């Protein structure tokens, strides 16, 4: 079966971002960018499916600017067979991304689409669920284990109370939690080979999807800083502070 993996180029998780002083957004000039960590888990899962003989072809897809080619090259270096770049100058909202991905699904006819549970820049946690709705497919979100068995998947999900297992029939959407797997690091020869693998470029506009934003960004601000704290010497002093200074004990 064919597996489609959605990957997003985001500010690296180690970067401490800065809010622009005019409140218009977050400063992303000259910061390290990488593949959304959850999407690395998605790709790793697809690669393991291929190793296990479940998947035959892995296609990575991203929506972004030409710079997102970097992210697709990383995906190809990890082991994706080919990649699709949907070129969009203005980053679409999750609803727009889901609509574009649904068009790719129509063209590519994968049996499984794997997305991250959330992109660590917008923290929306929506795209996979939206794509599932648009395709009228079942969804297995926040997956920490996926066992393929014939035409279905036994999927273990992380919930607020622990874990739950559901069974979903293919074709299906899966969104990943970080504990699904440990993504591999590409080796140098794989990085070299990835340079020869194909990336298809398509214009977002060519899909005939309305990408007009529904949410207007009024302003972006930094959260209130916490008041500087104090270092206390020992447990006794701490208890005293909690009781008599903070009044919380």
């Amino acid at each position, binding site marked *: 079966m064919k597996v489609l993996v959605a990957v997003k180029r985001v*500010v690296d*998780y180690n970067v401490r*971002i800065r809010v622009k002083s005019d409140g218009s957004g*977050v400063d992303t000039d000259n910061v390290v960018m990488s593949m959304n960590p959850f999407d690395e888990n998605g790709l790793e899962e697809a690669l393991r499916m291929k190793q296990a003989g479940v998947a035959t072809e892995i296609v990575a897809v991203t929506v972004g600017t030409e710079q997102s080619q970097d992210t697709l090259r990383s995906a190809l270096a990890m082991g994706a067979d080919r990649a699709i770049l949907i070129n969009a100058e203005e980053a679409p*909202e*999750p*609803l727009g991304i889901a609509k574009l991905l649904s068009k790719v699904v129509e063209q590519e006819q994968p049996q499984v689409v794997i997305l991250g549970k*959330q992109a*660590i*820049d917008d*923290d929306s*946690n*929506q*795209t996979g*669920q*939206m*794509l599932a*709705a648009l395709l009228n497919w*079942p*969804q297995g*979100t*926040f997956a920490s284990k996926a066992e393929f068995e014939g035409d279905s998947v*036994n999927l273990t999900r*992380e*919930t*607020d*109370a*622990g*874990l*739950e*297992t*559901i069974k*979903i*029939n293919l074709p299906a959407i899966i969104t990943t*939690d*970080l*504990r699904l797997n440990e993504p591999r690091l590409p080796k140098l020869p794989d990085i070299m080979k990835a340079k020869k693998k194909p990336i298809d470029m398509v214009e977002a506009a060519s899909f005939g999807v309305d990408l007009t*934003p*529904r*949410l*207007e*960004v*009024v*302003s972006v*601000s*930094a*959260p209130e800083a*916490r*008041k500087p*704290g*104090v*270092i*206390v010497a*020992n*447990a006794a002093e701490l*208890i005293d502070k*909690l009781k008599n200074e*903070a009044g*919380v*004990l």
Partner: protein
Amino acid sequence: MSILVIAEHDNSALNANTLNTLNAAAKIGGDITLLVAGSDAQSVVDEAAAIASVSKVLSANDAALADGLAENIAWLVNGIAANYTHVLAPASNFGKNFLPRVAAMQDVMQVSDIVDVVSADTFVRPIYAGNALVTVKSSDSVKLITVRSTAFDAVEATGGSAAVEELAFGEAFEGVSFVSRDVTVSERPDLATAPIVVSGGRGVGSKEDFAIIEKLAEKMNAAVGASRAAVDAGYAPNDFQVGQTGKVVAPDIYFAIGISGAIQHQAGMRESKVIVAINKDEEAPIFQIATYGIVADLFDVVPELTELLS
């Protein structure tokens, strides 16, 4: 304004986050309907009807709604969403799972995880693990919103007597079925709502030693939390994880013990009233946001603290 709130529950009791979500609805202002979608969840329906700020309860009772499957709840909510100006759910794994599905069915862009209501169409939400707050204005005719419970106080759970109306469910979604649930049983209070949380990180070193975290928590009647590193290492179950991808908590006191304070961890606890950090590395980033810090070996300080609290 007419607002639909989707209740989270386990068919026997209402989850406290529903009361916080109702407060966000009250801030938007208008008539509030609470939907209880479940199976034999009469006790939840009774609880829902008793909430003062709720004017109507919709009760959908069907075996297909027993386990919170997103496909079925989304179908149900989609059928009635157009009757409301706003549809709200808690930004828990339950709400995050089904509401975006409804949003796509309604062709609406959901506003995720709001922490403030500016007006009926303008909301504040954290992005970049809480390192920025964005204020967004929605132009959609129905506004679909998930609500961060720690950012809104709970409404009164009693004092009301709302009318209850039955809502029929259609056909269950084909191609998804519930298999099993593995719920963490803990004698400690619920992490999401406890006034005191004691969290341990990788510094605790082993599952066995994590008992010293639990002992301190027990002494203070606190909930136990953990960093992702501690969960990954198997010291604590996944639902103990606090952070960007775990739970968001805002207790009166949060103890971060053997936790470095990565931004992804801070995202889940930085709104706590008082933060106590115990770490042997004085350079650990957690000290930058801690109200009180102790630079020491946790294996010295934590047992001493536990002892002194007796």
